[in-house]
């Protein structure tokens, strides 16, 4: 089967993203796209952990927050170079993830869930309480924009370039990771830990690696978020945001890199379109999580495709190849 080069999804991604940059001129849409980009970054990372490795973090907002606050405090208060601060954020989040994963991942799945849930709440408390450092509930302002060789990313349109180029890169790295030797080991882990171990996969180390890796994505997203808004407050990093991220993964599809873009996009745009969304937020997210996991455990998109293919196979008289 020959493939046309322009049907390659990466080319498509670049063309669509570039086309938007060339033709759109309303700041509002760029702002929305920037949030979609940042959310996608978070969701891809969480999906590596949740969809591929089969481990769950209920406190991913904390790593997002650690990245954002490390960047924010180091640049606004201390005056460190933003790129250096971003790297420092990665170090902080990565270390935190390592320290939590070390005890929690040795045990069964729900230990990580509870440990990350607790960690998320603790980070949220610290962001609120340590007001000398973080500015407390009223937030931290005066965070400078990122700039590269004199080009400041200080308008929604310029930020769009930065965020989506970075996102493209991260998506590419993630897709390659998933299809690499490590990626196959990760998926083996998801399907059966004992089986993976019998084939020589060091499951504990691998789980820890993926957990730290996904925390790094979240931290990067956090730093970008801080430099995009130039202002951060603890309310962006609470428990409900962690739940939103899990919902985005579940909606877009477990173990799907492109589904992450879809899940993040849908749940970023919908609340903007529907103002009623705000009051019913928890009910909607809770219902999505339950309904999708009960009826379409592989995610909404994959689940609907499965149903469709299943029916088509049945109509043709064959059975569904699992």
């Amino acid at each position, binding site marked *: 089967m020959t493939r046309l080069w322009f049907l390659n999804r990466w080319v498509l991604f670049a063309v669509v993203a570039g086309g938007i940059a060339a033709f759109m001129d309303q700041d509002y849409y760029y702002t929305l796209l920037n949030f979609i980009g940042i959310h996608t970054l978070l969701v891809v990372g969480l999906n590596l952990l949740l969809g591929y490795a089969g481990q*769950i973090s209920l406190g991913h907002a904390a790593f997002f927050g650690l990245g954002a606050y490390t960047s924010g405090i180091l640049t606004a208060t201390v005056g460190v170079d933003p790129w250096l601060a971003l790297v420092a954020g990665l170090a902080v989040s990565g270390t935190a993830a390592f320290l939590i994963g070390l005890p929690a991942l*040795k045990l069964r799945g*729900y*230990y990580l869930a*509870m*440990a990350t849930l*607790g960690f998320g709440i603790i980070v949220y408390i610290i962001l609120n309480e340590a007001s000398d450092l973080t500015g407390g509930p009223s937030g931290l302002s005066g965070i400078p924009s990122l700039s590269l060789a004199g080009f400041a990313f200080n308008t929604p349109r310029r930020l769009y370039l930065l965020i989506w180029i970075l996102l493209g890169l991260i998506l590419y790295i993630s897709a390659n990771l998933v299809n690499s030797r490590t990626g196959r080991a990760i998926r083996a882990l998801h399907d059966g830990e004992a089986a993976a171990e019998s084939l020589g996969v060091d499951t504990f180390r691998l789980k820890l690696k993926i957990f730290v890796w996904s925390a790094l994505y979240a931290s990067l997203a956090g730093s970008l978020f801080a430099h995009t808004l130039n202002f951060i407050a603890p309310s962006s990093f609470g428990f409900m945001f962690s*739940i939103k991220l899990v919902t985005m993964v579940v909606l877009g599809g477990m173990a799907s890199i492109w589904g992450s873009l879809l899940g993040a996009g849908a749940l970023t745009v919908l609340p903007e379109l529907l103002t009623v969304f705000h009051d019913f937020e928890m009910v909607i997210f*809770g219902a999505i*999580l339950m309904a999708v996991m009960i009826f379409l455990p592989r995610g909404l998109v994959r689940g609907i495709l499965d149903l469709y293919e299943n029916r088509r196979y049945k109509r043709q008289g064959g059975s569904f190849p699992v």
Partner: protein
Amino acid sequence: MENFAPLLQYLISGLTNGAIYALIALGFGIIYNATTIINFAQGEMVMLGALCAISIYHVAPSLPLAFAGAVVLVTCVGLVFERLALRPVKDPTPIALIIITVGGAVLIKGVAMLIWGKEAYALPPFSGNDPIHLGPATILPQNLWVLGITAISVLALEAFFRLTLVGKAMRACAYNTRAARLVGIAAGRMVQLSFGLSAALGAGAGILIAPLTLGVYDMGTMLGLKGFSAAIIGGLGSLAGGVLGGLVLGVAEALATGFISSGYRDAVAFLLLLLVLFLRPQGLVGGRK
């Protein structure tokens, strides 16, 4: 003697909160024993218990009625939750069950916010507010109610699991579900019962603590996390472990509040949880892993 008085006071409030955590921990343990599920919606049952009791009391101001009514209502919620959210799951992997119960927790919390709004409501204490002097410290009647009802509940549970046929059947399922089925125990019924029982325990905890802390739609998440921490600290699935874990956690929290800072009170549960996971993952009492 001067340093002794605050210490005793912290101990009293710590034991009271600890008793609440113990009740929630037992709820986690009962469901875990029957299904190996960690029910993340357990904390929301506590919240529902408190708010239902407050609403019932508002309509018909009788505390026994409010207590009984709320426990019955929340038990029904627990049973319905098991029936609608967990039994239809075709592929019950741990990750799917975690996401479903977390989704359930968020859904219940969201519905509670729609029903009761974001305000906090008060429930009058069960027998007045006159403090009882206990040497240098004082104790509220409500503290005694919490400790007393918790003690009675724990003893009743112990008797239920040791002496009754249904309780023994539940324990059999916890040891080995397949073997229990082989001797004719309806394992599905036991799972249902475990959800009802732990919802009732959660509701009881919520009603007991409502006069001390007020009832509000988002009180469940934190209480649930602390109940879980208590269960892990003591040893998941063990009755004595849950009680011990709850009391240890409650006292540790009270001491941290008193001697360090009240802002970081909620961090104690999590730090203890991580410490236990590090050093002794089977918990203090150390049941099966």
